């Protein structure tokens, strides 16, 4: 009897593949001997806000008249601001940050940027992701170079996405792109890929394709590992709907499930608010605050919050003055948050932005973002920051 397979079900069992079993010889599993494993059990979660978040409406100088004069229609009403200090308060949509602040679990760094800032999204994002100077073009990312130095597995740094950002591309290795462990497992576990794996071990292949077969083996074994780990812990925590909530939930389940990944990279986009900023940004900040709250509570409940650091950044801040369409245009310096159960010096690292001395209408930078990277690399991940950043940057005193 013939069985007509329609397009819905194309790859069928062939009898060849024994589901789940992998044919990865050990010599290929040894990802690389040149990397030095880190002792650190600590996790790093990087959250990238794409589009250029308006930091001035997140950490609000609610007693500064210049702020209200520059933003007649989009400034956050001082009565609604959640005050943190005498001059700075939070956008009410970021209510969870208030809790972190009260518990001493967040450090806020103001006026972060770099010399000769670039106002193009793409270029400025490249600069942040590669940790380059403004006039320098690097083809590897800062976390990619961290992977180069320390990765013991192919999934040492995971980006919760289908494609890999420059930030996680190393010079010799790469991070691992994955949006869903089950889906990933399916693409590596279909009969064809399995058969090719098997084929590989029963036949000699040309030296020139060795790199591809090795990447294949690594991918399949990582996909298998991540899939197993993703089933270990199923959270009961309530995560908000939407892509970010899903990603945060995924990260929590992997961390709590004992996955040996050290870095997680999450992208959250939509911050390019040239027109009618308030509604758009409100929605994003609320989604962020809720997802963050679920994640932190989950980690805390399971005893992982002290070993996790969350870092938040955007490629640039926005112009101090609003534009003619209730929005803001691309600007320069911005704030960065570092959050963990173990922040040594919580609260504000430095003073509020100077709204008098601007650079072409933008906030001037005071802290180079690479000083923050250096802090994260040296003080949190306990590695040699200079070899990864390519030049020396002081770490921010005593935050981590």
């Amino acid at each position, binding site marked *: *009897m*013939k*069985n*007509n*397979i*329609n*397009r*819905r*079900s*194309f*790859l*069928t*069992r*062939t*009898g*060849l593949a024994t589901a789940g079993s992998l044919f990865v010889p050990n010599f290929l599993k040894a990802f690389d001997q040149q990397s030095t494993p880190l002792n650190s059990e600590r996790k790093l979660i990087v959250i990238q806000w794409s589009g250029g978040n308006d930091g001035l409406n997140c950490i609000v100088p609610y007693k500064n008249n210049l702020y209200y004069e520059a933003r007649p229609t989009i400034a956050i009403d001082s009565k609604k601001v959640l005050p943190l200090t005498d001059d700075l308060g939070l956008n009410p949509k970021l209510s969870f940050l208030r809790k972190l602040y009260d518990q001493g679990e967040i450090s806020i760094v103001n006026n972060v940027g770099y010399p000769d800032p670039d106002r193009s999204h*793409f*270029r400025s994002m*490249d600069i942040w992701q590669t940790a380059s100077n403004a*006039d320098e*073009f690097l*083809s590897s990312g800062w976390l990619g170079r961290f992977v180069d130095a320390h990765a013991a597995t*192919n999934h040492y740094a995971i980006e919760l996405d*289908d*494609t*890999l950002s420059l930030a996680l*591309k190393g010079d010799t290795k*790469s991070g*691992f*792109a*994955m949006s869903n462990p089950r889906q990933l497992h*399916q*693409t590596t576990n*279909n*009969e*064809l*890929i399995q*058969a*090719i794996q098997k*084929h*590989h071990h*029963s*036949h000699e*292949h*040309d030296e*020139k*394709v060795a*790199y*591809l*077969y090795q*990447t*294949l083996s*690594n*991918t399949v074994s*990582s*996909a298998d590992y991540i899939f197993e780990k993703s089933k270990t812990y199923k959270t009961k925590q309530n995560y908000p709907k939407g892509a970010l909530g899903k990603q945060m939930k995924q990260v929590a389940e992997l961390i709590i499930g004992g996955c040996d990944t050290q870095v997680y990279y999450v992208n959250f986009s939509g911050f390019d608010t*040239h*027109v009618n900023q308030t509604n758009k940004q409100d929605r994003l900040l609320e989604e962020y605050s809720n997802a963050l709250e679920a994640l932190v509570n989950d980690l805390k409940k399971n005893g992982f919050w002290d070993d996790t650091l969350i870092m938040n950044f955007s490629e640039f801040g926005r112009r101090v003055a609003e534009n*003619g*369409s209730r929005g803001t245009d691309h600007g320069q310096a911005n704030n960065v948050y570092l959050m963990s159960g173990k922040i040594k010096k919580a609260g504000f690292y430095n003073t509020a932005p100077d709204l008098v001395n601007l650079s072409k209408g933008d906030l001037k930078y005071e802290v180079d973002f690479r000083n923050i990277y250096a802090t994260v690399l040296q003080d949190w991940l306990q590695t040699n920051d200079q070899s990864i950043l390519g030049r020396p940057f002081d770490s921010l005193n005593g935050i981590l």
Partner: protein
Amino acid sequence: MNNQQKLQHLYWRAGFGLPYTALRKANTTTEQAIQQLFRTAKKIKAVPSPKYDVPSKAQFERLSPKAKQEKNKVLRQLVADLNSNWVLQMVSEDSNPLVEKMALFWHGHFACESKRVDFAVNQLNILRTQGLGKFRDLVVAIAKDAAMIMYLNNQQNRKNKPNENFARELLELFTIGRGHYTEQDVKEAARAFTGWFANRFTGEFEFKERQHDVGEKVFMGKTGYFDGEDIIDIILDQKQTAVYLVTKIYRYFVNPTLDANRVEELANLFYKSNYDIGKLMQFIFESEWFYASANVGAKIKSPVEFLVGFAKVLNMKFSKKESVLFTQRALGQVLFHPPNVAGWKGGENWIDNATLMLRMNMAAIAFERAELNIQFQDQPEQKTIKQFKKLEVTASIDQLQKLFRKEKYEVQALADFLLQNSIATDGTFIEELAQYTATADDKFKFYLLGIMSLPEYQMC
């Protein structure tokens, strides 16, 4: 190496794979094929260019912010259209392989992004019409090209207020390479290019005398009242420029691993020929060492090479232009959107876990999307790859099938045609997979699917 293998190698490096129609004429010599490629390269058909009515500055300023945003969105879409038009031209049956391959190489070399589709079209035309000409003409044309002038801020390069961006990249990336010029050279070159502007409306080159620094410059040890073209001539006088360019060409067209003696030989030739690109390419393709087994199948296909070669084999038609763009994005190379001015790094950098899985699953996905169904004997329905909904394609493998249908299908012959690194298919999973299919024609589909899913298929 037999003649067919040589032809396949030539066509992978000078194009996007040997057209299967050429298999019938397998006794064509490489010399004849090279002549044919260069003859065809003289007849260049323009890439269909999306129409764009450029608003004047005043008109644009009058638009509301929302209308401006709309206008920018339309523009982005037009650049995307140009992208797919170009790729579809590479795929089409009457494509001009060598011209497109050279243009693709130069597009990576003079990496540039433009928001204006009319500027992008002009630049693409330069690369396609001058990609086999004299390098001096090419680099001068690029220096006067609106897209590049905007991209590298030469529009802001004014007398007494120089912007060094273009001058620096000219030296560092386009001609002589890092370590062969000083910071002072960059400054002096920038002065020589002051006033090299482009008309924002038409894109035409405009030399603004009032913005040009006519003063004396000292550049690479020479002193004079140099302008931009003088600077280019002085750079081309340096033998190192030939070495730099030939190194890049060798890596791209011959082998990512350099052979120092060959590079030197080629650089001498290139320099003596006054940087004649066509002569250099012809010399490479005619050389016996070009066909050495170390060079064959030594390159990881770029996403565009992969996509074009793949589409040609399956005779694929894209029902939606978005499909072309979407695939590039997923594979990590979007034309007209290089990662930065240094272009795509290429080689192993194309490959990460996600892109490799996608490449290897691409044939299965395309078969499914194009409804090239296979009938199985007594097999239960099973899981499927549910992704890539955006890929809307049709495919036809009838002609290919005819070529390989003799008494029975010859799987080894098909593998030899599709792969540049040979494998023995005898008794492998490809044959085993195929045994469950119901008909001989379906067996062929499985052979094709199996071979196109191999890591070996990623190489050229």
